[in-house]
C-alpha cells in the first residue's frame, strides 16, 4: 500500500464528516428556496438564520452583519469593489503579500480609476505600522490586510493595525475627512485564530469554508453596520441586497458547522500542530544544508512550514515527493499559470532563485508525528539527488545580502 501523506491543508481541507452530516438534510429533505413563503422555504430560511446566530457568536457581531457568498475570493471582491466603487477617485491600501484575490482585485480597481498603494513587508513578512500611517492619504477609503498569509503563514498584528486605523479615523472625523474602512482576509486564520471583530477592530472580514474542514464554494463577509458598500452581483436581492442569487443552504449550514467545530478544538489542536510544525522546520533546517525558513519563526500559523531549498527547483521536488506519497506545494513558477514565482517570497526580499526553490508543507488534523518523521527521513535523499543533478550553486551570502538590501518601499500601482 502506497503511503499517502497530505501536507497541503492551506490549499484546502477534507470536509469533516460532522459537517457533511449537518449539510445532508438540505440537499433532498429541506431543499426549499429560502425566499419561498411556504413551510419548505421557511425551513431553509431558518437554517440560514441559525447559521448566522452560530457565526455571530464566534465573531462577536450581529447576525445581520454576516453576508454569505460563494467563497473567499467572492467575499474579497465584494469587500474591495463594493466599498471602492461607491466613490470616485478613491485610494486603497493593501500589502505586497496578500492573496491574488486581493491583489488582482486591486489591479482591477486601479483600471477603473482608483489609486492603490502596496505596503512592503520586512524580511520576516511583517507589515510596519508606520508604513500604514505614511501611505494614508486624504482620499483613502479602504485598507485591506490579511490576518495570516496563505503561503508563509505569517500572522499580522491586526488588532494593533485596527486600533491604529480607529485612532486615525477619529482624527479624520475632526477634519471632516471620510472614514477609512478596514478589511481583513481571514481565510487562513479562521480555523486557528481569534475572530472577534471587536477585538480585531475590523469593519469587514472574509472567511471561507474550504480551509476549515467545511465545504468549498461558500464563504462569508462580515460587514459592520453602517459600512457604505454596494453589491457587485445584481439580481433577486438576497442577503440584504448585497449578494443576489439563491442562497447555498447546504453550504451555509456546512460553513457554520465547520466554524463552530474548529473553534471548539482550536486551542488543543494549535498546540499539537505547533509542536509538529517546529519539529519539521528544525528537522529540515538541521539535516539539509542551504535551507531558509520563509516567514517569521513564531508569528506564524501553527500548521505552516515554508522553506526554500537552494540549488533545486520546486516542481522537481514536488514530483519526487508525490512519488513517495507526500503531497505538498511549491512557490516555483513552474506550477503556476504565469512564469512568475511566488510574489510572497519575493516580497520578503528573496531573489527569484529562492522563490523557485520554496516548498510549503501545511499540516492539519489528520497529520501525525509519524508523517513528519517520514518527510524528514526521505526529503534529504531527494534533495541530495536533485542537487547532484543541478549545475547551480547559489551563494547564501548573496541571498542574505539581497534580502538585507531589498528596497521595501510603499509602491503605487
Amino acid at each position, binding site marked *: 500500500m502506497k503511503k499517502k501523506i497530505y501536507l497541503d491543508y492551506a490549499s484546502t481541507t477534507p470536509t469533516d464528516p460532522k459537517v457533511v452530516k449537518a449539510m445532508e438534510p438540505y440537499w433532498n429533505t429541506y431543499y426549499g428556496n429560502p425566499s419561498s413563503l411556504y413551510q419548505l422555504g421557511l425551513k431553509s430560511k431558518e437554517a440560514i438564520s441559525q447559521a448566522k446566530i452560530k457565526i455571530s457568536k464566534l465573531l462577536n457581531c450581529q447576525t445581520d452583519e454576516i453576508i454569505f457568498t460563494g467563497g473567499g475570493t467572492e467575499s474579497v471582491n465584494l469587500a474591495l469593489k463594493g466599498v471602492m466603487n461607491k466613490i470616485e477617485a478613491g485610494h486603497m491600501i493593501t500589502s505586497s503579500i496578500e492573496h491574488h484575490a486581493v491583489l488582482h482585485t486591486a489591479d482591477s480597481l486601479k483600471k477603473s480609476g482608483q489609486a492603490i498603494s502596496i505596503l512592503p513587508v520586512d524580511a520576516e513578512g511583517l507589515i510596519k505600522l508606520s508604513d500604514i500611517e505614511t501611505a494614508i492619504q486624504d482620499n483613502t477609503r479602504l485598507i485591506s490586510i490579511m490576518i495570516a498569509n496563505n503561503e508563509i503563514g505569517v500572522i499580522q498584528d491586526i488588532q494593533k493595525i485596527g486600533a491604529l486605523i480607529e485612532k486615525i479615523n477619529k482624527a479624520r472625523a475632526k477634519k471632516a475627512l471620510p472614514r477609512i474602512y478596514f478589511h481583513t482576509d481571514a481565510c487562513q486564520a479562521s480555523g486557528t485564530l481569534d475572530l472577534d471583530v471587536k477585538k480585531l477592530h475590523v469593519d469587514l472580514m472574509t472567511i471561507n469554508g474550504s480551509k476549515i474542514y467545511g465545504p468549498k464554494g461558500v464563504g462569508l463577509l462580515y460587514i459592520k453596520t453602517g459600512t457604505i458598500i454596494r453589491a457587485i452581483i445584481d439580481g433577486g436581492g438576497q442577503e440584504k441586497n448585497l449578494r443576489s442569487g439563491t442562497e447555498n443552504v447546504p453550504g451555509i449550514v456546512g460553513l457554520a458547522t465547520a466554524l463552530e467545530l474548529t473553534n471548539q478544538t482550536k486551542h488543543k489542536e494549535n498546540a499539537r500542530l505547533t509542536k509538529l510544525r517546529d519539529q519539521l522546520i528544525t528537522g529540515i533546517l538541521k539535516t539539509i544544508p542551504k535551507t531558509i525558513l520563509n516567514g517569521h519563526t513564531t508569528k506564524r500559523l501553527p500548521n505552516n512550514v515554508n522553506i526554500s531549498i537552494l540549488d533545486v527547483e520546486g516542481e522537481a521536488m514536488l*514530483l*519526487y515527493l508525490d512519488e513517495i506519497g507526500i503531497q505538498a506545494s511549491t512557490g*516555483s513558477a*513552474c506550477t503556476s499559470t504565469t512564469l512568475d514565482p511566488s510574489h510572497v517570497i519575493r516580497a520578503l526580499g528573496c531573489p527569484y*532563485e529562492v522563490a523557485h526553490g520554496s516548498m510549503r508543507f501545511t499540516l492539519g488534523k489528520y497529520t501525525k508525528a509519524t508523517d513528519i518523521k517520514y518527510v524528514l527521513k*526521505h526529503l534529504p535523499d531527494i534533495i541530495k539527488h536533485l542537487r547532484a543533478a*543541478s549545475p547551480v550553486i547559489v551563494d547564501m551570502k548573496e541571498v542574505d545580502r539581497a534580502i538585507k538590501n531589498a528596497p521595501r518601499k510603499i509602491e503605487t500601482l
Partner: protein
Amino acid sequence: MPKKTKSPVKDLDRSGKKPSRRKTDIASSVDVVPKGTNDTWIYTDTVKEHFFSPKNLVTDASKMKGYDGLGMVGSPACGDMMKIWIKVDKQADKIKEMKWQTFGCGSAIAATSMLSVMVSEAGGIKIDKALAIKPQDITKRLGDLPTRKIHCSVLGDKALRSAINNYFIKTKQKDRVIKEQVRIIDKIAKVTDHDIEEAVLEGAHTLEAVQKKTKVGVGNPEVIPEVEQLIRFYTEKYFG
C-alpha cells in the same frame, strides 16, 4: 564514466524498465494542478521515466574530464539552467556522448535527458544533425508535454548548440561557429527571438511592454509562455 544515477525513490529506480503505475491510485494519475486553473498536468510515462531515472546525468561535475565541448544556458533566476558536456568523434564528425546537469522542473530535466539520448543513440549523430534539433523534436520524443510546460523544454537545444560551438572554437573550426539562429516565435506576427531581444534591450521588460513594441502573441496567445520566458531570459542576460 560517471556512475549511474541512483534515484532516491527506491521503487522507481527502474533503470530503463517500463514504468509500472498503479492506475487505481489517484495521487499518481493526477499530478500537478497549477494555481488558478482547473487543468491537470499529466506527464507521460516517458517524461516520468526520464525525470525519475535520467539518462547520461552528471552527478559530480568536478569529475568531468576529457570532453570536447561544454555549453551552458539559462540562470537559476529564470527557473531553468542547463550545462552540457559533449564528446565528439572527430573523424566521423559525430557526437559520441552527451552528459548534462539541469536545474529545473520535471519537464526541463526530462527534456535534457531525452536530448542526450537523441544525440548519442545508435552510435551518435552527425554534428550538423545535432545542430538542427528543435525543442519540438524533443517534445515529440517525450510523447508531448502539457501545453504550459513546453517553455520549460526550450533551453536544451540551445545548451547543446553552445556546447558544439565550444567544440568548434576548441578545434579551431571558427568558420563553423554558429551564431544563435533567428527563430520565429510568433508566425502570425512574424516576430523572432531577436525582435524580443531588441525590445528588452530597449527597455521593455514586461509582456505588455514587449507586445507594444512587437505585437508578439497578440493574435496568437499560445506563444505567450515562450515570449515571457524569453523576456525573462534576456532581461536576466542584460540587466540581471
